[in-house]
């Protein structure tokens, strides 16, 4: 029998071999997202030819990158602590709506606060993140449930804020922004890249960044050195709220309208991007840099499929399948693992 081939190994050796196999697998899984990315680029370059492999298309991809990237970054931190944030569609939509209302627009002239309006939009999302974190941590409600509820609360607030008719942004500076670019990269993408840089800095160069990894690995490690797990978790949800808020503000600026619908369909690709990038749902592994690869995979895929003329509904379906496959490949299994 094949299973007996380890017959002459001692138990410690077997154990060590098992660990070695796991490590090898992990190393492969680490490289997988990059390989997938290059494979996709190669395939689409062959199938779509010049349409895909052109500077013009590259700029187009970069153009679409900003908001999915921001959302995915925020989500990455939450997933790294083993939680999940389902509120994205709502919080982004709410932030966008409020930005629309509180800057110069065609409907609510009395609220023109300029930059302050943008801040209000972002802050609303930060607040929601903070509250979701607090409720999750202190009332001990699973994060998916808290954020699920908040998704709807935020959507409601967004819709209610402009009661049905989204305001068009008239602020001359903001209206011009989407068209501006710097060394070929649009302003909005720059904003996303700056946030990305800050998040990498937070993750790699602050104590908080280290604690995020620790919470995801084993919460007791933190208590042993006297760091409050609860505070770290609340901070993570707040940081995620900040990322979603900025995404919402940029989405409103790009669209020229404060609309709750800009949040629609954001959560799903973001979840897929984070997981595809190699951040495990169990927490403690991965990070923002992995997510960049994940977002690129999702964007390239979507862009390539568009160029191939694939029906948009099939594209969402494919996203669904990708997330299932990615999670199924990375999730822990075994008799004692209980998944709810």
């Amino acid at each position: 029998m094949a299973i007996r081939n380890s017959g002459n190994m001692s138990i410690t050796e077997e154990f060590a071999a098992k660990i070695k196999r796991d490590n090898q697998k992990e190393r492969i899984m680490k490289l997988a997202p990059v390989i997938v990315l290059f494979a996709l680029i190669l395939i689409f370059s062959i199938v779509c030819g010049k349409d895909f492999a052109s500077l013009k298309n590259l700029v187009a991809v970069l153009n679409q990158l900003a908001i999915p990237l921001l959302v995915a970054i925020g989500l990455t931190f939450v997933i790294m602590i083993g939680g999940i944030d389902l509120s994205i569609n709502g919080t982004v939509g709410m932030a966008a709506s409020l930005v629309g209302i509180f800057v110069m627009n065609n409907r609510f002239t009395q609220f023109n606060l300029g930059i302050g309006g943008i801040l209000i939009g972002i802050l609303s999302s930060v607040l929601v993140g903070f509250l979701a974190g607090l409720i999750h941590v202190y009332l001990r409600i699973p994060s998916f449930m808290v954020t699920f509820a908040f998704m709807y609360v935020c959507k409601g607030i967004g819709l209610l804020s402009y009661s049905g008719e989204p305001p068009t942004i008239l602020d001359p500076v903001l209206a011009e922004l989407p068209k501006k670019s710097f060394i070929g990269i649009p302003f909005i993408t720059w904003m996303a890249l700056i946030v990305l840089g800050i998040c990498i800095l937070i993750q790699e160069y602050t104590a908080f960044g280290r604690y995020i990894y620790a919470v995801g690995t084993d919460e007791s490690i933190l208590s042993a050195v006297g760091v409050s797990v609860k505070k770290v978790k609340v901070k993570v949800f707040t940081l995620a709220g900040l990322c979603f808020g900025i995404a919402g503000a940029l989405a409103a600026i790009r669209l020229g309208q404060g609309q709750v619908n800009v949040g629609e369909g954001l959560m799903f690709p973001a979840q897929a991007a984070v997981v595809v990038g190699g951040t495990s749902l169990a927490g403690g592994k991965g990070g923002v840099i992995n997510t960049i690869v994940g977002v690129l995979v999702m964007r390239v895929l979507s862009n390539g499929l568009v160029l191939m003329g694939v029906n948009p509904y099939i594209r969402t379906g494919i996203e669904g399948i990708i997330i299932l496959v990615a999670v199924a490949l990375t999730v822990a299994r075994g008799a004692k693992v209980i998944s709810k």
Partner: protein
Amino acid sequence: MASNKTVDIGKRMRLQEHLMKYFSFSAIVILIIAFSASQQNFLGKANLKTLLSDSAPLIIMSIGMTFILILGSIDLAMGSVCSVANVLTVMVLNDIGPSLSSPVLAAFLALVVSIIFGAFAGVIQGIIHVKLKVPSFIASLGFMSLWQSVALLITEAPVSVAKAMWPAIEWVKVTFGVIGLPLILALIGVAILYVIQNYTTIGRSLYSIGGNERASRIAGISVDKVKISLFVVSGICAALGGYFLAAKLRSSAPRVGDSFTLLIVAAVALGGTSLSGGRGGVLGTVLGVFTVSVIQNGMNFIGVDAYWQNIVFGLFVLAAVAISVDRSVRGLVVK
């Protein structure tokens, strides 16, 4: 003393259960009084009829979700399974119906197709969740997007049921007093699930798995089988919801289920089913559905912006979950 503490926890669990039950009950009563005080016609026959018949699809779907939540899992794909069943129903009626001998036969065929689809959706989601250990909220999220695209691929725009087929959906209009046939059928569904829940091996296993999955496994319960069967039940319930909606609206709408996800979770949570699993039941959910319906209907009636609904139900879910969640196990890490 340790023993005192355990008694306290037991008492608290009972208290929580009562709290949720009476919360729903009193919420219904207070809301009805409040709404009818402000609007004379609220308790009128016409409104009562809409209120009761509107709640039928929600009841059907919510009782399916109840089982899933008792397991401690969640099924976010119910809304889109409902949408697919909805468009399938209308497709069967319009495309195959005319070639059949009678519209009733077409209605029956559509029903069978819906149920088969719902069961199929439940089986594959259940298998992926149970066998591959993909957390249910992620698995169902994946299927949510999958089925949403399937529904939109079948029909992008709403399609009305052909006039010739109207007899096939006439049954929704049958009423006995203020109670319509859809509600009666939904309540029959409740009765069936109530029997499953309380009198069958699957139902008993449901509560033990929800209460302690590891212990249930060690005790020799076929945990995987039970869980998959329950996902099948929830899939069928979602599909039936879609079938009901097709008949009620006389048309298909590929996104009809989207708005239901929140309402379903709200209804089940308000009905006292604990998210941590192991407690609750379909009867509570029926109360929860009526609470949701009364609020919905009342808000429409007194002319509150529909936009409030998301906020109100979102907050309700939070409140209900906060009350019913089990915080007695200290070491448990909540993710």
